């Protein structure tokens, strides 16, 4: 299969034609030999995006999403590599489940799927899972995501044991004894009569994780950071040389807790949407390098789990198909960061943290790329998503950065029909 992308502009500003053969970027060949030629003048090429934090729901929750629909959704968002969290049923805490996920992912063929294994067996926060055997089967990291690593003692053991296998540890930072609520604690939660979750619940867990990583001198990665103090602690820790990295999600730099005022559960997630002050701190952290990555935390739910009273609705929103456009519209367009920085946040850094080796655009590299329209505004329509989930807060948003084409390993995985 030979593909040519004519009149391409790279995210760096470089202009050239891109040649792809047998799944790799290649040298110039005769245009007559191309199986497919795309003229992408006016559009921008990024390396295929890498999502280090998503939920594909399979096995166990196929009514919410499958590896196939999740991968197709990812491709539509410009992703070529995605890392599903282990909170499936059965939990991804052993090699057999890892192998099953990889088999399904290969059959689907819409994205490179790199599973994340559970730190603890059955995610119960007690016993270590078989991290070594899972690594042999193909995991790229461990996490108890959805839950924090339960105790400081378990955190220590997970960090130590995982480091023997050079497996990164990703922690969902939440002090459970403080987080019995359903939205951010503040004026808005008080006004709505909803139980609040204080930012302190996240900050205490971040502090714990940094202290342990520093004490052991072992890397740790913090999931979906949403608070001002969290960003400050990571910044300070990095300055001291602590091996800490972190991610945030598009909703933490685009939305505030005011959005919950109509009790719409599409604004309910964990950690919860914070106030403007925290949104600004997240943007600052993305600008100055404190925050390493933008992940989606793509979390599809069935309508029946969302169209209920706010307090009992499931946490989480879908994210693959809006993440890039939100990053471009809210970060690059207003001048907070450059397109190159966005590529670092959404491809190179997550690839490096998980040692995936993705993002190359040179001859001989796997041909993973995404083409976006950065010039024209589009209206995001939730009913046109490829994910099974419809739980997005962004329906009707006017955004820039619509995906035009996604290629993974030389295969076209998404193509906008004009």
């Amino acid at each position, binding site marked *: 299969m030979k593909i040519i992308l004519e009149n391409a502009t790279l995210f760096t500003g470089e202009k050239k034609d891109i040649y792809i053969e047998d799944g790799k970027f290649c040298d110039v060949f005769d245009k007559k030999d191309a199986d497919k030629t795309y003229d992408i003048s006016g559009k921008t090429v990024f390396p295929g995006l890498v999502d280090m934090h998503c939920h594909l729901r399979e096995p166990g929750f196929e009514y919410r999403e499958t590896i196939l629909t999740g991968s197709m959704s990812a491709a539509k968002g410009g992703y070529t590599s995605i890392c599903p969290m282990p909170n499936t049923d059965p939990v991804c805490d052993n090699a057999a489940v890892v192998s099953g996920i990889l088999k399904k992912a290969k059959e689907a063929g819409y994205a490179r799927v790199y599973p994340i294994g559970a730190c603890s067996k059955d995610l119960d926060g007690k016993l270590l899972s078989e991290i070594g055997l899972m690594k042999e089967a193909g995991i790229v990291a461990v996490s108890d995501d959805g839950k924090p690593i339960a105790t400081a003692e378990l955190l220590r053991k997970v960090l130590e044991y995982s480091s023997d296998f050079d497996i990164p540890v990703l922690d969902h930072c939440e002090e459970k004894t403080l987080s019995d609520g359903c939205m951010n*604690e*503040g*004026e808005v*939660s*008080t*006004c*709505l*009569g*909803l*139980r*609040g979750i*204080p930012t302190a619940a996240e900050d205490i867990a971040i502090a714990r994780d940094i202290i342990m990583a520093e004490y052991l001198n072992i890397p740790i990665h913090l999931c979906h950071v949403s608070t001002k103090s969290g960003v400050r602690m990571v910044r300070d820790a990095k300055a001291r040389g602590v091996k800490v990295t972190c991610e945030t999600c598009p909703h933490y730099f685009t939305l505030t807790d005011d959005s919950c005022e*109509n*009790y719409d559960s599409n604004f309910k997630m964990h950690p919860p949407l914070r106030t403007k002050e925290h949104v600004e701190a997240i943007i600052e952290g993305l600008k100055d390098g404190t925050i390493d990555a933008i992940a989606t935390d793509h979390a599809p739910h069935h309508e*029946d789990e969302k*169209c*209920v*009273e*706010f*307090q*009992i609705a499931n946490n989480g929103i879908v994210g693959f198909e809006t993440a890039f456009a939100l990053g471009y519209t809210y970060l690059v367009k207003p001048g907070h960061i450059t397109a190159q920085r966005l590529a670092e946040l959404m491809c190179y850094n997550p690839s490096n943290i998980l040692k995936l080796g993705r993002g190359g655009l040179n001859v001989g590299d796997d041909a993973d790329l995404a083409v976006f329209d950065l010039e024209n505004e589009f209206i995001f329509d939730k009913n046109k998503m490829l994910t099974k989930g419809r739980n997005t807060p962004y329906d009707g948003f006017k955004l820039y950065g619509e995906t035009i084409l996604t290629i993974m390993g030389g295969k076209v995985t998404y193509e906008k029909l004009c």
Partner: protein
Amino acid sequence: MGLRNKDLLGLKQLTAEEIMEILETAKTMKMVLTSGNKKTSHLQGKSVITLFYENSTRTRLSFELASKYMGSASANISATGSSVAKGESLLDTARTIDMMATDIIIMRHSHSGAPHFIAPHLNASVVNAGDGMNEHPTQALLDMFTIYEKLGTLEGKKVAICGDIYHSRVVRSNAIGMTKLGAQVSIYGPKTMMPVGIEKLGCRVADNVADCVKDCDAVMGLRVQLERQHKSLFPSVAEYSKFYGISPEMLELAKPGALLMHPGPCNHGVELPTAVYDCDQSVINEQVTNGVAVRMAVLYLLMARRNQI
């Protein structure tokens, strides 16, 4: 005039003019209520359903009597003994009631925002009879009516509310509503029961009970749920009543003859000693009567709006 919205979800959604119209209408309704013949025909040929997911004595009975005095067909559904117990979702239950040509659904629910969630899906008008910790609009309206009737106005009046502020939907509705009518609301309770940013509702957070009730025209106690001491929100009933209760000495700091109020049910000896509950200044029992009048007014005005459309 009349009400702007199909539903009565909270004081947040009402303007000062709408609140005053409800209070004025309640005056008329109270005359009906206290006359020998309590029958009116305002709701004749109409249906009113009470849907209660939480226990209630006053609110439920006063809504039920209000609708019956006005001639409606009415019925009750509780969470226990209905399909709710079989796991039917709130929306399905509400739609089922709606499809029986129901005009008004009065709902109490333990989750904040539950009536806001169902209302847009229904043809019936939804009246919030208390949603979680959010609002209890008809309680606040009857509290405001009581002050309005006794003192002639809420403009410039000082109202103190003491107790478990965090969990109280009565406080939220009263703070919002009374402020809209020009009253100054002071609140006080243990810090463990004081929500972040409550000042945003327009009230002042006092330093202690004395500071809260000083020179007030009305003093309101709130029920503290005794089981909350097991969650370390307060250590004991003895300590709560000593530092946070409204004692006769504290009541003396208010204006002479200040109204003593309580939404009920009251834990005697905890938030109020029985001597205070029964004192001459107490309007607690009259609040109950006013509750029926205010609920008649609300049902009347909502139905008048429905009849116009």
